[in-house]
């Protein structure tokens, strides 16, 4: 056999030598195929394989039966979210689905002034006064953007932008 350069992918795979064969384990695939075709079957082996196949089937069925439907609630109409801050309590965070470049209206009802941090790149800061303030927000990149209250340090909203 002549000397082959290790960087001869086709030759290496064909001859089962060299760097590509080491990486792709040609011999392994050959022997795997041969073992599948020439599997010796005794009764014991057959029973074991049947048991394994049944276990696989049952587990598969359980998994698909238990699969949940994840329903993403789509808001119809203009996109608007209301956040209420009262007595230093932040609202419990919700996740809101939004389109890329779609404008969302954040209606902030608060008894004190404060600001919201929006974790986009770069981070945005939206200030609000006491009372009811309407802030407009647009996000240009897909992802899950967290909006948190600067004063309380808690997440108040998650925007799932896709």
């Amino acid at each position, binding site marked *: 056999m002549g000397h082959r350069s290790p960087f001869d992918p086709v030759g290496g795979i064909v001859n089962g030598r060299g760097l590509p064969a080491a990486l792709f384990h040609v011999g392994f695939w050959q022997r795997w195929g041969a073992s599948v075709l020439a599997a010796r079957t005794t009764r014991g082996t057959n029973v074991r394989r049947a048991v394994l196949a049944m276990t696989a089937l049952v587990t*598969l069925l359980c998994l698909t039966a238990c699969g949940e439907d994840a329903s993403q609630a789509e808001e119809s109409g203009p996109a608007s979210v209301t956040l209420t801050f009262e007595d230093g309590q932040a609202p419990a965070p919700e996740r809101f689905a939004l389109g890329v470049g779609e404008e969302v209206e954040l209606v902030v009802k608060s008894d004190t002034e404060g600001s919201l941090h929006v974790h986009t790149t770069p981070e945005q800061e939206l200030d609000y006064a006491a009372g009811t303030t309407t802030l407009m927000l647009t996000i240009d990149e897909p992802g899950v*953007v967290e909006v948190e209250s600067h004063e*309380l340090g*808690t*997440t108040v909203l998650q925007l*799932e932008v896709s």
Partner: protein
Amino acid sequence: MGDRLTLAHGLGGPADLPLPPELAVAGGVAALVVSFTVLSVSWRAPRFDEHRSGRPAPAWLARLVDAPWFAVALRVLGMALFGYVVVAAVFGQDLLTNPVFGIFYVWGWVGLVPASVLLGPVWRAISPVRTINTLVARLTGSDPERGVYAYPERWGYWPAALGLFAFVWMELVYPYFTELGPVRLWMAVYLAAMLLGGALFGSSFYRRGDPFEVFSELCAKLSVWGRREGALLVRSPLANLDTTRVAPGLVAVVGVLLGSTAFDSFRESLPWIRFVQSADQSAFLLDTLALTAFCAGVALILTAGSIATGVDTETPRGRLPGLFAHSVMPIVVGYFGAHYLNYFLDVGWQTLSQASDPLGTGADLFGTADLAPLTSLSSQPTLLASTKVAAVILGHVVAAVASHDRALTVLPARHQLTGQLPMLFAMIAFTVGGLYLLFAA
């Protein structure tokens, strides 16, 4: 920031979108099918022999890598990076634009995985603590390999497991992880602990005690590079994985690596955020407990999956978890890749442009200060989601094959097939759990 602790990312902007449900279910089903296929149709005698696997690397490559100047150049590179990080950490500004955070959390931690899988155990080659230990030893005329004592074998990888837990705790739980003071402190304590260990036990301490070196070495077991009697080899990642050295604490290391990545996905989910923000206990305590629970849970599932089998008198049951721990590493690497790929590309690129200005003076040392942001995978969510599922499933395939081969070596003949089922279910639990976390994030 107020008294209540924030759970949002410190570095990087938006988080990844959750996986579409069809993709997650398809991934779970694929994992099941792969596992049972591997079990029922694959080989019956162990294939990987560490004394014979692999082929010698090309001569020019072996010459290059074994050349003394190459080793010295890598050490100089490591020390230069270390010096840069020290200068930026000590004299730089305490702002998010300081490149130290990106280098520490992204290039160093996340970047260690692809670097090791592609190039082998990189941390060992560039580790600044090894270099400092060697220099100090040379200056004082002693042998850097030997310390005052011999490293106690029963400690195994436990120091590295503790170090890794300390790192992930700081990254995922500690609320001030993007402030310069805590990062400096962590690095100083790490340096002190490593140099002390090196002085006490010699440089052999680093193979088991340096968290980054152990992490890098375990990931490098999935590369194609190996060594036997000093010669550089090329061998299949599966054969390489089989040569992982088993020592006490390996299960803990794997548990921390997988558990921390799983917790990172979990803590971004809305139910957890709601629970923590409405609970009376501090977020700090709850997050620490949850992180510990995830790491311990992974270790427990691995232990249960490996010991729930019949054994003979030759293999004590207590040794089995350590013998199978290496087969969970592909799942770790696959899940790490799925979770951090977009983060690595986005924040890593940002760090490249921040690196030109370490002291916040407006300098442009490397000409990268005005790099345009990368049009990354975030703008292609379907591609990103498919890549994530592919990475997780690939990790599962390699893991299933590796554990199958190890079972053939350690389990007695009559338990070889049925004894693998608990481990198979443990791996399915990891993979399906991982996909669920990516779906529910």
